[in-house]
């Protein structure tokens, strides 16, 4: 028996709907849910996409660094913050960012003006550095460690400084150091 023409049309429409439904479900399970899991790692969008890296946003972590930061232990994260402070903020003359990273009490005690801080860092730190870290000591929410700062390709005596770091969130930290 031949199927009526209209029924064929309806069947085609419903088949298309079903295919669309399957596509939606596939998207749901393959794209949306995995992305949601990914979202658990990507709490914040405070990083630079790998193809947007430039000197203007050198102070921000790249996408890869951001993921690595969230998977790192306490000690590695603190090392990262100190490297960010010295290499990225000061090394690339982003002094305002470096000044903002200082704890309020530390600013008040030693660098009550931005100019004082700039003058200090320009005198104190080389532009290209090699950092090495001593043992880290945790005191409550504070981390204390000695950092050796060497200038690349230089015979100058390395600088040894004690850093105190407080981590508020990923890539959100307050810093103080022995002056």
């Amino acid at each position, binding site marked *: 028996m031949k199927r009526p023409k209209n029924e064929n049309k309806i069947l085609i429409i419903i088949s298309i709907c079903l295919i669309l439904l399957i596509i939606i479900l596939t998207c749901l399970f393959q794209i949306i849910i995995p992305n949601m899991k990914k979202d658990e790692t990507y709490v914040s969008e405070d990083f630079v996409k790998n193809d947007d890296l430039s000197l203007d946003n050198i102070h921000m972590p790249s996408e890869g660094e951001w993921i690595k930061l969230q998977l790192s232990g306490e000690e590695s994260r603190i090392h990262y913050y100190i490297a960010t402070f010295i290499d990225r903020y000061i090394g690339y003359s982003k002094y305002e960012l470096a000044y903002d990273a200082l704890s309020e009490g530390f600013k008040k005690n030693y660098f009550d003006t931005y100019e004082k801080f700039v003058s200090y860092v320009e005198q104190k730190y080389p532009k290209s550095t090699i950092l090495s870290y001593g043992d880290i*000591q945790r005191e409550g929410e504070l981390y204390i460690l000695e950092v050796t700062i060497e200038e690349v390709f230089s015979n100058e005596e390395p600088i040894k400084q004690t850093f105190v770091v407080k981590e508020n969130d990923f890539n959100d930290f307050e810093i103080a150091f*022995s002056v």
Partner: protein
Amino acid sequence: MLLNIRLSIRRFWQKHKYKVVIALIVWLIAILLNQMLKQLRTPVTPSKSYFPHESIMDTKEEVPEKFTQPIEEWMDTFFTSCNNKNYEEAYNMLSDEYKNSNTIEYFQKYIDSIFDTDKTYIIQNYSNKENIYLYKVKIMDDILSTGLTGKDELEYVEEIVTIKRDGNDLTFSIGNNITEEAVDKAYENEHLKIAVTNKEVRYDSEIYTVEISNRTDYVIVVNNFANSESVVLDLGDVQRNLAGTDIDMIIEPESKLRIKLKFSKFFDDGRDAKAIKFENVRIFEEYLGDESDDEALRKYSIKIDL
């Protein structure tokens, strides 16, 4: 035309209704699942190793979660008062037990000796036993404001805050004294009386106040420098000697000696003190310090159950 379409839909529905219903159900389940997973999503925060309310000595007993915030608030108010030299306010936050044995003048001197400059503090639950929570508090300069400038290492004063829980009430004290209670235990005969009158529990020791009365015309030697192991605290499976070896307990005729005996014992070691033993009590006609035990008129071994 419309009629044809309606008929076609009806026929299609009759033929495929189960498949369509199943497909709809699957779709709904998927949507619900998606919503549920969204609800379960939790923000990620940096992993930390600082847990101020987790005991570092023993995790058998924990500080109930509902008390962690009141404890933090108490610490904040207390140490802020100390920083601001509000002695009376800080003193009144302490337990009656503390206030009964320490005057506000003593407390003020103590606070002045620690809070000579603005200090911060770090708390760490140390040990918990029978609704008593011990916190070690490191009191130090605000190193996030100094960067440890001019210091080779972190300097701090460690204070023990004892928190006693009675139902939902918490009382706080400082100064290492965990508990203090009156004791009424004694041994006596016609020659002497030894009475234990008080017990102070500290984290690492127990201190007993003992009164020894000499009822004779002779000299009673309970302990002397040469034989400091003759007074012990019996803990059942183990005995503890007197802490300190230079304790003379020599009681002249018809007189009384009141002394505090300190024994090493950790608050959370799981043992209870059973007795104090005076194992070499001697009565001498005269005592110059170099007499041998054989010269004693009488010798006793006395045990006072606690």
